[in-house]
């Protein structure tokens, strides 16, 4: 889509920027990344009243052009960089009308870059309600830019804003805010000469940020560094001087344009809620309650749509099988591609539900209170107050939880959270655990109260949480942080969630997951399908010939015969061969090559373990019925006549599944979130080592 004008949205966090973005673009938007970094870039299109089309770029929320985090560092680059195809023709600065003073700091910085600017004065209705009187015309006159009052939540003023965008000047006409040259006169002059700019603030910003800016050549950056030394420039002192000067200018501007009552109404209202929600006792109880409700809902509400999606795909597979001729291509399509697609789609309900909750928690302002309450505990183990939500979400599924770590601004905290979230017992491990526990743990009560099987399962859940915390604690010392950890954070006033935003966020996350992680999952499914349905040389033919002999066809029922054939085929397939290959490696864990096959096939998703066991032991009847799989596994004997699934082997297997990264979707989503293959690789490696060690220890202890 080609646009006639490019508009960047910029503003402080919690100013309703994404609401305004949604109001301007509707569903006509896409999420990507800014080139070269993992910072999320949202773009959309808006039809202007004069018939032109505007491309809207939503920039990360920031309090200033001087970045505190990686996300924020993108803002100056986009505004300043020429020739990347991102440079905006116009900047719409969104200001929170209830807190103009702090919001105007960012405006004055953007204005001094001399890019055409419009101010969208958001939450004007809330400002009125709390008794703040703003002389909009005078404000516009003093700043020299159009000021459009809007209420993005109520969709008021959007049409006027679009008109203002279409009438916007091509030239920056705003008033000078502060005397930038006074901050570092000689340096600004020499940089301006060096890189040929006539904007002193642009030159000053380059002095501060030249090390992180892609469009400067290394030579230019070194030259700026030299000039800084020459003029003994101190970046932080200069920033302090600039900020004080800007606030003094802002105070002048606000002096006769804004009248604020002594206490804003909204603040006291918010205060009352805070007294309960961050209370010493109730605060934690309420938070625990919300987490449990979230966890339960992800489990309960997603069960029905998930089985619906699965049934739909089973139906599609059946229908395709009837239509298409039998052959390798059909097999690839049905058992590789469609099966893989089903494996992707089945995550959508969980992702949508988790993001609905997260979006509500963020929108209302409760998420920052969670961070506020949990910061002290979580910091001790190298995590962040906001890590609590992904970790608890991990009990349902690591995939949406890892996507939700975007809310953690601190790079190191976020990486540690991503690295440990897959350790938490997700719902896909549940069928594996229940199968194995029922197999070896007697179903009786101890001390009348506790069921042994239930205790074993609870133990696995607790173990996962403990291991996640321990690993996080270790990683705290391994990872080198690139940013200093701040906790200077706004606690926004409580507001009702914007249901539109909730829906958008559910839709966007699901779409992003399907489009990006889906590719990897489908690729892995296809590989696994090839491995389990092809065999070296003519092994399959031999099996089929063998079972076509009358001694089999006469004595065994056709159904039973089919199961035996497919079981023997799987044992002889490439997956079976691989099972034999890895047998020496997994033998110390108590696993034979048949379990090896299951380990390989369940790499795409852990729950596949049960299905593979069913095929290997040629389970009759409904293979999805866990009891019949159990029966076969219980009777399985090794060559020495002992049962394969002893207590030691079962626990060793559970330990393996507790720690191993047996989930292609998680690998894919970690790659998507970090944009660097080394992260999922490191994660896969450390989890496999842990899994091996834990399985080895428990096998040898219980043997």
């Amino acid at each position, binding site marked *: 889509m080609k646009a006639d004008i490019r508009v960047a949205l910029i503003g402080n966090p919690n100013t309703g920027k994404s609401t305004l973005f949604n109001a301007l673009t509707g569903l006509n938007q896409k999420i990507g990344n800014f080139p070269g970094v993992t910072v999320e870039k949202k773009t959309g299109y808006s039809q202007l009243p004069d018939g032109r089309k505007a491309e809207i770029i939503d920039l990360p929320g920031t309090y200033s052009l001087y970045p505190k985090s990686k996300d924020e560092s993108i803002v100056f680059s986009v505004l300043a960089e020429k020739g990347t195809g991102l440079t905006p023709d116009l900047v719409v600065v969104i200001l929170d009308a209830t807190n103009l003073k702090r919001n105007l700091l960012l405006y004055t910085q953007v204005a001094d870059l001399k890019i055409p600017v419009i101010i969208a004065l958001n939450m004007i209705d809330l400002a009125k309600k709390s008794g703040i009187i703003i002389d909009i015309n005078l404000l516009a006159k003093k700043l020299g830019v159009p000021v459009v009052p809007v209420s993005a939540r109520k969709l008021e003023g959007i049409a006027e804003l679009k008109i203002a965008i279409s009438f916007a000047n091509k030239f920056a006409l705003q008033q000078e805010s502060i005397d930038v040259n006074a901050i570092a006169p000689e340096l600004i002059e020499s940089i301006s000469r060096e890189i040929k700019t006539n904007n002193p603030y642009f030159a000053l910003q380059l002095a501060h940020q030249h090390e992180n800016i892609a469009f400067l050549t290394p030579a230019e950056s070194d030259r700026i560094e030299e000039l800084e030394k020459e003029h003994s420039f101190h970046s932080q002192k200069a920033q302090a001087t600039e900020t004080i000067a800007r606030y003094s200018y802002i105070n002048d501007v606000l002096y006769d344009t804004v009248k604020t009552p002594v206490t804003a109404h909204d603040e006291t209202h918010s205060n009352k809620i805070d007294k309960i929600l961050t209370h010493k006792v109730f605060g934690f109880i309420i938070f625990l309650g919300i987490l449990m409700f979230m966890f339960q809902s992800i489990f309960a509400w997603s069960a029905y749509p998930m089985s619906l999606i699965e049934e739909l795909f089973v139906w599609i597979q059946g229908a395709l099988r009837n239509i298409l001729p039998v052959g390798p291509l059909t097999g690839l399509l049905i058992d590789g591609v469609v099966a893989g697609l089903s494996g992707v789609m089945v995550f959508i309900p969980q992702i949508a539900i988790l993001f609905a909750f997260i979006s509500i928690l963020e929108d209302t302002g409760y998420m920052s209170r969670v961070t506020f309450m949990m910061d*002290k505990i979580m910091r001790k183990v190298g995590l962040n107050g906001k890590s609590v939500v992904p970790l608890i979400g991990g009990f349902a599924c690591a995939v949406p939880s890892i996507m939700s770590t975007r809310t953690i601004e601190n790079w190191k905290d976020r990486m540690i959270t991503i690295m440990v979230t897959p350790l938490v017992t997700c719902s896909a491990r549940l069928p594996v655990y229940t199968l194995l526990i029922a197999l070896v743990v007697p179903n009786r009560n101890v001390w009348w109260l506790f069921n042994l099987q239930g205790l074993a399962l609870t133990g696995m859940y607790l173990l996962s949480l403990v291991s996640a915390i321990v690993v996080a604690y270790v990683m705290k010392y391994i990872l080198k942080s690139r940013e200093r950890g701040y*906790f200077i954070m706004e606690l926004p006033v409580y507001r009702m969630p914007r249901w539109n935003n909730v829906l958008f966020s559910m839709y966007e996350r699901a779409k992003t997951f399907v489009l990006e992680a889906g590719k990897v999952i489908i690729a892995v499914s296809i590989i696994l399908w090839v491995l389990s349905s092809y065999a070296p040389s003519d092994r399959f033919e031999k099996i089929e010939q063998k079972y076509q002999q009358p001694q089999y066809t006469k004595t065994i029922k056709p159904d039973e015969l089919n199961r035996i054939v497919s079981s023997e085929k799987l044992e002889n397939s490439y997956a079976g061969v691989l099972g034999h290959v890895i047998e020496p490696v997994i033998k110390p864990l108590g696993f034979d090559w048949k379990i090896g096959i299951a380990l390989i096939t369940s790499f795409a998703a852990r729950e596949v373990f049960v299905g593979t066991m069913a095929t290997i032991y040629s389970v009759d009847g409904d293979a999805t019925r866990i009891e019949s799989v159990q029966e076969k596994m219980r009777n399985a004997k090794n060559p020495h006549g002992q049962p394969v699934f002893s207590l030691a082997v079962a626990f060793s297997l559970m330990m393996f599944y507790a720690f191993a990264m047996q989930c292609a979707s998680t690998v894919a989503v970690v790659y998507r979130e970090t944009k660097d293959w080394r992260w999922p690789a490191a994660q896969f490696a450390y989890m496999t080592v842990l899994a091996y060690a834990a399985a080895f220890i428990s096998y040898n202890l219980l043997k």
Partner: protein
Amino acid sequence: MTLSQLEIGEIGIVKEFTDLEMSVKLMEMGCLPGEEVRVSRIAPLGDPIAIHVSGYQLSLRKFEASTIILH
């Protein structure tokens, strides 16, 4: 006296900062010399704290608050 020593509800006026890097971030957030700050609450575990400054609520760790010297 530093901001970290104030009890809930107490008010102070920012005088200066002991940590330059931190002060830059704090000032950007509207916490400038001459500005009035009020401790509005302390997190259940004693850290961080929330203050009321230039018309909104800001949370910061005790350590960060200890770099703010009050009049």
